[in-house]
Each structure stands twice: as C-alpha cells, then as structure tokens.
C-alpha cells in the first residue's frame, strides 16, 4: 500500500471519528450528569439523518443542507426533551435497569415510527458543492467533506468545553456529574437541568446524524450501528469525560478504517478487542473516574 492511500485511509477514519465524537459526546454528557445509559441515543442520530433529508428536500439546493444543519438538531433536541419529561423523569431514583429499559423501549418505538414514515428505502443527503470534491495539499488530495467534518468536530468540542467550563449551565452540569443530590440541596432546579441536558445530548446526536448524512446511506438500522460504536467510544474513553470521548472516537474511527484496509473481515472485531483490552486494563476507561454507577 502506498503512503498516499494510507493517508487517505487515516483521513476516512478521522472523519468517522469526527461524527462519532459529536454523537458520543452527547451520550457521555447524559450519562455523566444523569447516570442514564441511553440506548435510544442512536435513534436520535437516525431521526436527525432522516429529518435532514426531508428538510433539505423542502428547502432545496445549498440552502437545504445548511437549513437542515441548523433546524434538525433543534427538532431532535425537542424530541429528546419530550421523552425526558414524558417518561424518564418518572424513573429517577428507581433502579437503573428501569431507566435503561425505558430508553430501549424508545429505541423500538422510534425505529418503527421512522419505518412507518420513510419506509424501508435508503435515503441520501447531498453535501453542497462547496464541500464536495477534494482539496490538494502537496501530493495528496483530501476529500473536502472529511476536512469539514473534522473542523465541525473541533468546533463542537471547543463549544462544549466552553459551555462546561465557562457558563452557569456548565457549572451545574459539572456539579451534577459529581453529586446530583447536593446540587438539589443548594437550590438548583435539577429537574429542569436534566431536561436541558437530555435535550442537549439528543441534539448532538441529531447533529451527528445530519453531518454523517452525505457520507453514509441513510437507512433503518443505522440507529443500532451507531449506538454500538458510540458505546465503544465512551467506554474506551471513560463515561462522562469529554477528552476521553475525543480520544476514544479517534481510536475507534482510525482503528476501524485501518482494520478495513488490512483485514476487512475482522475490522469491527478489532474495535471490540481494543474495547475489552482497555476495560480489562482500566475498568473505568482511559479518562474515566471510578464511581458508583
């Protein structure tokens, strides 16, 4: 294999890592602040991708994609907020298993609703011309959309970091990560905070769905695929850690892309081997903090 092809493979891995980071950061955030393992997180990603197709279809052209990018995360965040207020809220303080199973129930419901509305046919979303094609650096042509995805992940990552470290909301979220009960005692409206966090997490998954749209086939079952990969990311990185999620996403994305090149049939298996190895070595992930979960 030539060096050029290898660089391209790594680029593919990094652009997948970018999407994984955006989706998994939402998963990690929800777990960190609320202690909920949200199995329906992949459903938000899938809904994001499908609704983006609809919105882009309505608006048409370049405006369509940009419009979807702006509108869809809000729609998906609203859906997340609705689920939190309607169902999850009633389960706080009960067994974790019930919360986990409730999100599993939503995974089932959402998958059938999407199937009802969009049918079994695969959909596609086109990136605007500005982001299609390739840009040349030296001797290598880089696909522009991959570069765009990486830039988007960096922007989202910085945004989340600023949100968590510089705002009142971020302070409350960090407090919830370390001790939600105490947070309620000092007068923070924990109930509203949880709604916001869950909506934010869902919105990130929805955004990931829109961004991944032009690079993947938008198809039923993409919810299950992304949730397994996102779990791998947050487990390797450590649940609740933003830096860990970034490292985990790069590790999973690049490992998978290189795996596909060299041993295609075992690519996904290698990801899981890495996951098992990391957990056996560090049971809380690379950047996770030991805690009661």
């Amino acid at each position, binding site marked *: 294999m030539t060096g050029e092809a290898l660089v391209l493979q790594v680029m593919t891995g990094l652009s997948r890592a970018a999407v994984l980071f955006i989706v998994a950061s939402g998963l990690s955030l929800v777990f960190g602040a609320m202690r909920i393992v949200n199995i329906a997180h992949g459903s938000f990603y899938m809904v994001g991708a499908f609704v983006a197709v609809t919105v882009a279809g309505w608006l048409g052209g370049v405006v369509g994609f940009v419009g979807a990018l702006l509108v869809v995360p809000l729609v998906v965040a609203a859906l997340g907020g609705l689920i939190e207020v309607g169902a999850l809220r009633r389960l706080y303080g009960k*067994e974790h298993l019930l919360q986990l199973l409730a999100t599993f129930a939503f995974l089932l419901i959402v998958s059938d609703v999407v199937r009802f509305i969009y049918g079994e046919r695969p959909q596609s979303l086109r990136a605007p011309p500005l982001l299609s094609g390739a840009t040349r650096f030296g001797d290598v042509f880089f696909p522009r959309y991959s570069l765009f995805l990486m830039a988007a992940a960096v922007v989202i990552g910085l945004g989340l970091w600023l949100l968590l470290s510089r705002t009142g909301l971020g302070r409350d979220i960090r407090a919830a990560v370390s001790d939600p009960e105490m947070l309620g005692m000092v007068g923070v409206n924990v109930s509203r905070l949880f709604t916001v966090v869950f909506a934010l997490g869902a919105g990130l998954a929805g955004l990931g769905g829109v961004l991944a749209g032009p690079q993947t086939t938008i198809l039923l079952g993409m919810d299950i695929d992304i949730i397994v990969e996102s779990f791998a990311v947050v487990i390797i990185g450590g649940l609740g850690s933003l830096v860990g999620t970034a490292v985990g996403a790069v590790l999973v994305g690049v490992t998978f892309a290189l795996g596909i090149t060299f041993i295609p049939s075992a690519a996904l298996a290698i990801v899981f081997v890495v996951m098992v190895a990391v957990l*056996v070595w560090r*049971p809380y992930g690379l950047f996770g903090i030991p805690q009661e979960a």
Partner: protein
Amino acid sequence: MRRRLTASTGWAIAALVALLAPLLLNERQMFVLMSIVILAVFATSYNVLLGYTGMVSFAHAAYYGIGAYAVTLAWVHLGWSPLAGFLLAPVAAGAIGYVTGLVALRATRLYFSLLTLAIGQLLFLVAFQWRGLTRGDDGIFGMQLPLLLQPATNRYYFLLALAAIALAILSVAMRSPFGATLRAIRENRDRAGFLGIKVKRYELAAFTLGTAFAGWAGGMYAFFDRGSFPLLLDWTTSADPIFTTLIGGLNSFAGPVIGAVVLGLLRDFVTRNFLYFNVVLGTVLLAIILFMPGGIVEGVRRLAAVGGPGRRRTQPEQPADREQPAAAGTRSKS
C-alpha cells in the same frame, strides 16, 4: 404455605395445558408454542443473572447462539446426530461463559454490562465472519432431525421435556443455599462481601450457570429451526429475555415463564395482523416500566392483596416482597 400451594397449583395447571395443547392446535400454532417453550428457558436462564444476582448482561444471546451452533456445527463438521450435539450445547456455552465471565467480572455493575456488550459482539462477529466454520451470514440450515422428531407434535413434546428438565434444575439451584447467597448479593453487594461471601466467585458461578442454560435453550432452538444463524448471538437478541423477564416479573421464578407466554402470544398475534411489532412491544414495555415495574406477577399479587381478606401488608413502593413462590410444582411438569 398458602402461597406455596397456589404456586404448585399454578405449575400443575400450566403443565396440564402444555401437555394437552397439541390436541387443539394446528401446526402453525404448534410452532408458536415451541418458540414460547424455548423463550421460557432462555429467559429463566437470564433471570439467574438479572433477577437473582442483579447482573445486567448484554451478552446473553451470544451463549444462546453458541448453544444453537454447538448442535449444528457438530452435525456439519463432525457428523454427530443432533441428539448427541445437544449434550454439547450447555457444555460449550457454559465453558465459554466461564472464560468470558472471568474477563467481564473484572468490572462491576454498569461497566460489567458494557464489557459484556463488547464480549457478546465479539462472539457475534466470530459467528458472522468465520465463514469456514459457520458459513457466516448464510447460517446453517436444513439439519436432519431423527425421524421420531420430525412431526411437529413430537418435536414439541421433546422440547417441552427439555424445558421441564432445565426449569427443574434451575429452580432447585435457586432454592438452594447457593440461590439464597445470590439474592443476598443482589440485595446488597457490599454487605454480602462484609459477611464473608466471596462475591465475585458467586457472580462467576451464577454467570456460568446462566450461560450454560442459555446454551441449553439455544440447543433447543437448533431443533426448532433445524439450523442456526449469526443474528442469534447479536446483542439485540439479548433484549428478548430481558423484555420477557420484565413483562412477567423479575422477582419470581415463574415471572420469565409467564412473560414468555405473554410475549410469544403477543408477537404471534401482532405480527400476523400488523406490520409494526416494535412499536407495540415498545409501548407495552414502557407501560410496564412506568406503571407496573414488578411485571405481571407483581400486578397479580397486588390485585390478590386488594381482593383477598387479611392480606393488607402490601406496600406498592417496595419492589416486590422478595419471596419466591417458585418451584414446588416444577417437578409436576416433567
């Protein structure tokens, strides 16, 4: 005492219905019944982990699939009769369960669950990708059953007998001091440790026992479908016993069996009339989680407590009085 009696009556009626059902049912319905019997064993084996020990595993389907493949692979590669292959099913699943359990139990609680997800998917990918051994995605089908087992009715009685044996063994195990120790671990893992119980060792034993009987159920599936395919091992298949147990009730031995009957009939009814089964299942689950977290068993107990005299002691907020009405009658089933 009274509860014991009710439970044995319940099991006796269930056994009678199960034995007489073939007289009334057509062939399609016989296959529904067989799938229910298999699901009952699969879910009960899972409840050893979930309800008795408090472990949430996402890998349970992997051992179920291993059980099915043990039968079909022994048939394809070694030329074994399925009956001989069936003996291999719980052994293979239990052995792999023991080894992977050693790895998974490096972590606890949530991280244990997530580790089982990785291990289960790894096992799924082996079945999916190792074409030389498993024929990959195509699966292995068309296994020749012994002549006697080819009619649906005979196959049903065979599977029913296998289910009865499995349930009898598990019920004895769960009523033994071993089962009591597992419940102590579920109630309070730390305190059980302080009492001198070697928690990890018991958890590993429960994991191995559960996976061995998941393999048993998988072996039954190989007879049912005369084959096996990779999706049997996928983590989404692990949802089946979880949902079954949830519907029936986590805190009793009979819960998963009742859940299997309800889920099996519901699935058959809905899929024949309506294209979207998942939305129905999801809604049912959500309703149970929100309004009846103890499942059907708990719901019935609550009704009985309201209706019957002199049983005022029910506190709905407590997740079931942890007593287990199991079993006295399981023997009557075999």
